[in-house]
């Protein structure tokens, strides 16, 4: 049994209470949500804190998935399992279903939270890659109020975030746009392992009358398929999960095709910064950025097309 160094333990009963404790204890304290990233590090004594502030009692306040016409809001304490089991969420963003199936194992998914996933800022974090792909924004609360930070600014390097020592993440917001499709592709060495590399893709089609532009997709009930927008997010090929804007630029307004996916894959490979480690060589990870980008786009477009048809 691996045992952490001694620490004091507090249970927060409200978000303000948690923030108050953080203000009082400063950087000697750490929030613990599901604990599945924090506790292993503490047991290995890679991380030692004087105080742990347990925020699991805030699940009642911060464990939710709500929908408006423009947005999905997920509370920071929402657990992997709740995400994986929300039919409504998976219908809007099927990428969550793909990702949750390959995150860790049921034991971890029962406790681990989306807030912990994002705040851990592990470069191989799958939910971070999903949020990156979907262009999410993060609601950070401190005693002075809330601020909203886009994903692109949330991660500040490996294991570093925009959340200050006296703040906490409370919510993640995802914009909803019509005719969307999304997908996630991950290669791992073994079930439950962290990604060797992974790619998420989200696409939004514009459904225009036949013949107005581009090629006609015969499967598409007379609609031309054009990408109104597209985003690709990569995991484990750089210091943080990243979105590749040049891919969006290359895909926007184009008709989906294998050649287009190949172009996107090429851009992914060019714009990532993998390193060699026991999970795989840098060359291989670069190749995966390409291959998985293509696969994710292909599947995302297929899903979006299915949606347009129905």
């Amino acid at each position, binding site marked *: 049994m691996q045992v952490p160094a001694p620490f004091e333990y507090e249970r927060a009963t409200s978000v303000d209470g948690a923030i108050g404790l953080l203000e009082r204890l400063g950087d000697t304290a750490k929030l613990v949500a599901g604990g599945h990233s924090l506790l292993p590090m503490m047991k290995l004594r890679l991380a030692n804190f004087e105080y742990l502030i347990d925020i699991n009692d805030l699940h009642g306040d911060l464990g939710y998935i709500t929908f408006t016409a423009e947005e999905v809001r997920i509370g920071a304490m929402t657990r992997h399992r709740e995400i994986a089991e929300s039919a409504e969420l998976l219908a809007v963003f099927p990428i969550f279903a793909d990702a949750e199936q390959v995150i860790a194992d049921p034991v971890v998914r029962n406790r681990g939270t989306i807030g912990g996933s994002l705040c851990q800022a592990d470069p191989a974090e799958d939910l971070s890659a999903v949020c990156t792909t979907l262009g999410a924004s993060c609601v950070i609360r401190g005693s002075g109020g809330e601020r909203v930070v886009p994903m692109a600014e949330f991660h500040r390097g490996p294991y570093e975030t925009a959340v200050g020592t006296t703040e906490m993440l409370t919510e993640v917001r995802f914009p909803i746009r019509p005719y969307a499709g999304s997908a996630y592709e991950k290669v791992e060495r073994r079930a439950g392992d*962290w990604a060797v590399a992974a790619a998420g893709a989200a696409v939004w089609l514009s459904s225009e009358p036949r013949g107005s532009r581009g090629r006609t997709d015969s499967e598409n009930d007379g609609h031309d398929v054009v990408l109104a927008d597209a985003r690709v997010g990569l995991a484990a090929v750089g210091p943080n999960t990243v979105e590749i804007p040049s891919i969006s630029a290359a895909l926007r307004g184009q008709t989906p095709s294998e050649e287009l996916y190949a172009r996107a894959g090429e851009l992914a490979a060019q714009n990532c910064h993998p390193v060699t480690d026991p999970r795989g060589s840098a060359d291989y990870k670069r190749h995966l950025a390409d291959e998985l980008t293509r696969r994710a786009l292909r599947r995302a477009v297929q899903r979006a097309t299915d949606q347009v048809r129905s």
Partner: protein
Amino acid sequence: MTTVAEPQTARETAFVDNDLHPVGHGRMLRKEDPRFVRGRGHYLDDVQLPGMLHLAILRSPLAHARITSIDITAAQAHPKVKLVVTGAMLAEKNLAWMPTLSNDVQAVLATDKVRFQGQEVAFVVAEDRYAARDALELIDVTYEELRPVIDARHALDPDAPVIRDDLKDKKDNHIFDWETGDKDATEKVFAAADVVVTQDMAYPRVHPAPMETCGAVADFDSVNGKLTLYSTTQAPHAHRTLYAIVAGLPEHKIRVISPDIGGGFGNKVPIYPGYVCAIVASLLTDKPVKWMEDRSENLTSTSFARDYVMHGEIAATKDGKILAIRTHVLADHGAFNGQAAPVKYPAGFFGVFCGSYDLEAAYAHQTAVYTNKAPGGVAYACSFRITEAVYLVERMVDCLAFELGVDPVELRRKNLLRPEQFPYTTKTGWVYDSGDYVATLDEALRIAGYDELRREQAAKRERGELMGIGISTFTEAVGAGPRKDMDILGLGMNDGCELRIHPTGKATVRLSVQTQGQGHETTFAQIVGEELGIPPADIEVVHGDTDQTPFGLGTYGSRSTPVSGAAAALVARKIRDKARIIASGMLEVSVADLEWDKGSFRVAGDPGKAVTIQEIAMRAHGAGDLPEGLEGGLDAEVCYNPSNLTYPNGAYICVVDVDPGTGKVTVRRFIAVDDCGTRINPMIIEGQVHGGLADGIGMALMEMISFDEDGNCLSGSLMDYLLPTALEVPAFETGFTVTPSPHHPIGAKGVGESATVGSPPAVVNAVIDALRPYGVRHADMPLTPSRVWEAMQGTVQPPI
């Protein structure tokens, strides 16, 4: 063969109806399982003694460094700390170094240098486990860093730092050179051969990673001078003798108890510094002391396995008759030569690399070296290096098939030994007892539907899909061993067995071997049950306690059934012989007129007249007369010395699919046909095979203890050292052939490691076969997606 009916209720599981069970060999539920599945097992960490203290070990953060100072004052001042001990303090008691199983020495606590990351430097004993662990951080050690040797390929470089400067006059990192076979004869065959194929291959360092880590509770009683040591050991008797020799404690005052063991796989064969520290701590504090290592300690400091860099050569005629095999091996033994193998076999049983084939010549040369990595070797279900030997020969045969452009099954069929060639002496001197290798292969092909698989593969290749079929036809050598050839530190590799038949006809059998999950409590009851006709439920199997069992060398190398199983059968026969004499008195006929009918003696020609073994047992202990000159009681004891090893064999077929875009391998099917001679409990055999196949798939695809160039171990947790899960293994398809061992009393050959030994080459052969369109002939394990993809690009490097 009796099948097992599903128990209906919890009550039935606990009080199983004997009628569901065979009296003797056959499928039956394991007697030990109710306690395991109900959480009633008693593992090392379950041992709680009054006043027990807890020990934690400070380990080296560096792979190679000189210790310049150790300051323990802050740790000693911790309010819950009772004792802090360094290497220098052990040296005063002459206990800083201990012998290894290979006649080397190993530091219990480092005195001069640390020689691998994770090496034991000091220990703390405290009131609880947390305090002991916290106090480690209060010990201040200063090191002067030295250049480490990590890659065995550079261990003998002229400028390599000398790791073992503790050894007198040691000027390099060389441990030994060893050879087997006929070098000149092999050279002649190679020179004249039509085809010679050479291939470098590495068998990476892997770890047994048992679910239960290693630990000990030492309890020294200063009044009567007796040491009771609970420890995670696969060899309690051998350990007791070694403690007596090393620590100078009288052997009769040492009791080693091996409680339920959560997996061994060879990891629990050696004596670790932690055990010795616990003993020293109990002697010094006069209190029971527990040491239980954590997962990282287990992975980074205890006995690893493999770590062989091999160069293989195979010679053949152009029509595919294999003539000779030659190999050079570089063996990495880590910082201390802690290999567990019979003394005369420094390379273990690697000499069986001739495999299942009829060769004209064979030769192997091996060089073993020290590196700044954890010590050990051999451990991990390998039958003393046969895993490496089988991997070499089965890969070489596939490389030959590749070059000749022939089907690997047909190449094997042409060269497999024939039944009439047994007993067969290999070109390296091993005498295979029996086998029908072609029959075993044919059974595997039948189950697999081999021809259909090849047709499917051809169709898939047309479509650009990658599917591979891998074969391994291996020969194991287990049951060490004959005392004329085999000993460990001077202890003969024989095993005793005691059997007592109680007055009511129930029995207690006491074994020198120890179960770590193999099912001894069931198998041995079945062996005795078969010989005496007593239901296995009426036979209690006692093991793992030196005060309660006869001497023997323990369980590893698949030796329990071949050695101790023979002892159990023979001791039962001894009892049956005595029972026959008693029966002749009871039935008033001569011994010659009695017939044995599994559980009773009957008068020949008068089947109504009979006495059961239970009636005989009561008479043996009862008040009535016994035949002239016969002692009362019905107990016996034997010590079995095998005349030869036993040689199980198998034919394995693995079917994989490889994703051409990612290199990810999926094992779709695995067909394992084993011939382990007489099958005692087929369910237990299947369980052993399933576990071994999972092991083999793990090694082939993901397992490796790796290091960075500074000697930092990169595999110190189960997030980094990957073990396969149910999702990585297919539903196994097992089959069998039965060729009994001619010299074993019941013809059983042992099966514990067959699957671990035989499966890795089948998986690798399958992956390489899948990569055929890319012209790949070889790629080293572990075949992770990255390494497979690199093989497809032609850039894959050997693992380090």
